[in-house]
C-alpha cells in the first residue's frame, strides 16, 4: 500500500527548546486506506542510521496537541486523518547531525476486522536533515 509515500521528506528537522536540541521530528502519513482514531495505532518504530527509537521516546502531535504513546491509547476522539501527516517528535538530546540519514519507519494499524496482528507497513528511506 502506501509504504513509499508515508514517510515525508518535508519537515524532517531537529527540535529546539530553550536553545537546546531535545530531539528531532518526522512527518508521517497513515499507510492504511482510511483515517483512524489514535487508539488503533498498534505500534510505531523509528530508526535513524540503525539507532532504534521505541514509542517511549516519541511524542505524537495532532494539530496543536501532543501525546505520549500511552496517552494515544485512550484518545478515542483524536484522528489520524487519511492523507494528512501527524508529527512524531523523537526525544534525543543533541538531535541529529545535518546530512543524509537512513530513516526507517514502521506503523501497525489495528482495525478490529484484521485480528490482533494488524496491518504492518515499513519503509527505509534516505532523507536529508538540514537544520
Amino acid at each position: 500500500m502506501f509504504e513509499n509515500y508515508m514517510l515525508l521528506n518535508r519537515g524532517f528537522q531537529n527540535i529546539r527548546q530553550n536553545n537546546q536540541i531535545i530531539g528531532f521530528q518526522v512527518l508521517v502519513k497513515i499507510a492504511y486506506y482510511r483515517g483512524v482514531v489514535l487508539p488503533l495505532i498498534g505500534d510505531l518504530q523509528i530508526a535513524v542510521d540503525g539507532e532504534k527509537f521505541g514509542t517511549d521516546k516519541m511524542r505524537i502531535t495532532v494539530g496543536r496537541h501532543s501525546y505520549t504513546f500511552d496517552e494515544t491509547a485512550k484518545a478515542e476522539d483524536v484522528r489520524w486523518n487519511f492523507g494528512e501527516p501527524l508529527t512524531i517528535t523523537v526525544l534525543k538530546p543533541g538531535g541529529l547531525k545535518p546530512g543524509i540519514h537512513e530513516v526507517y519507519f514502521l506503523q501497525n494499524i489495528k482495525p478490529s476486522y484484521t485480528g490482533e496482528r494488524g496491518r504492518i507497513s515499513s519503509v527505509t528511506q534516505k532523507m536529508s536533515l538540514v537544520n
Partner: protein
Amino acid sequence: MKLTRNEFLKTLGYASAAAASSGALASSAGAASSAGTQASSAGRPQDSIMLGVSLYSYQHAFYTHAMTLEDSLAELNSIGAQGLQIIDEITIPDFPNPPEQWVDQWFAMVDKYKLTPTNMNSFVDIWWGWRHKPMDLQEQVATLTTRLKLAKKLGFTVVRPTSGSVSEPVGKIFEEIVPIAEDLNVRVTPELHSPIPLQTNAAFVGGILDTIHKKNTKHLGFTLDMGDLPLPFSKERSLKYGDLTPAIVDYIDNAKAKGVAFEEAQAKVISMNPKSGDVSYGYRVFGTTPAAGMGGMMNFQNDPKDVLPLIPYIYNIHGKFYKMTEDLTETSLNYEGAFRVLIEGGYNGSIDSEYEGQRSMQAQWCEPINEVEQVRRHHLMMRRLLGRI
C-alpha cells in the same frame, strides 16, 4: 413495511439511471414517501441497474492530493456514472461531525454532477486497537447508529459496516441495529468480501439471513463485493495479462521441483521485485496459506450461481477490480458469470466500481498508477456486459 421491494427502491431513488434526480434524492433522503422517481420504461431487466463509482478507487490520487473531492465527482459525471459511494473515513472532514458548510457543499456537488449517494462504507472498530478496551455491545450499537445518522445526513441509503473478523460468529450488533436502521430508513449491509463463502448454509451468510428472517426486516442485507467471485486460477491467463512475472514463475516452479524450503524460496522471490500475483503463485505452488491479514486470498469455491438466492437481500454491489486490460477484461474476476446471474435474478441496485489494483503497485513502483483510466475501462466493460454499448 407494506411497500414491495421495487416500490421501496423507487422511493430511495434507485430505480432508474435516467429518471432519478439527485436533487429529489437529497430532499427525500429522510422521507420514503416522496417518490420523485420512476422505474425505467426500457423494459430489459438489466436497464434498472445503476452504475456508479466508489471513491475508494481514487484513494491514491486523494492521498497524494493529486485529485480533490470535487475533481473526483466531476470525473464520475464525465463518465456518466450515477452511483456515488465513499469510505467515510477517507472522504468526510472532521469525521464523524462534518461542518455544516461542507455538508451544503456536498449536496451542491452531488446535484451539480447528477450523482446518487448509494453506500457509505463504515467501520465499527469493536476492539479499539487492542491497547485500550473492547467496545461493549451498547457502544458498538451507538457507534453504528452515529454512522447511520451521518449517512442519512449525506443522502446515503445504504451503510456497509465492517466490525469484527468474519471468522467470528455474526455479531449481536446486527440484530440490535435493525429497529434503528428501520427508524432512520437506512439499510445496514455487511459485506460479502473475499474470501467469505457465499453459500446460504455458510456461517456468515447464513447468520445474517437468519437475523433478517427473525427480524422480518428489509433494512438488513448484504453488500456484495465482486472480489468474492474469482475466475478459476489459470497460469496461462495470469502470464498473458502480466499478473505473473515469467522469471519468477520459472524460479518458483524450479525451486518446488528441487525441494527448496518455502522460507528460502520466499526470500528469493521477494528479492526479485515480485508482483502480488507472483507472491500468491508462490503460496499456491508451495501449498502454504498466507498469514492472516496478508490479503490476496481468494475463495475459488464460490460460483456466481451462489449469488442467485441472495439477490433479494443484496442492496449494493462493490464492483471490485484489480486490473483492466486494453481489451476491457478484468483479469482475475468472473464478471461475465456474475453479470449473467445478476441480470437473471433481477438485481436493480447500483454496481459501483471499486478499483483496488493501485495497492499492489504502490509498494513496488512497478507500473504507473492510473486509477482514473482503470475505472473508465471498468465502466466500459460493465456497459458492454449490460448491453448498453
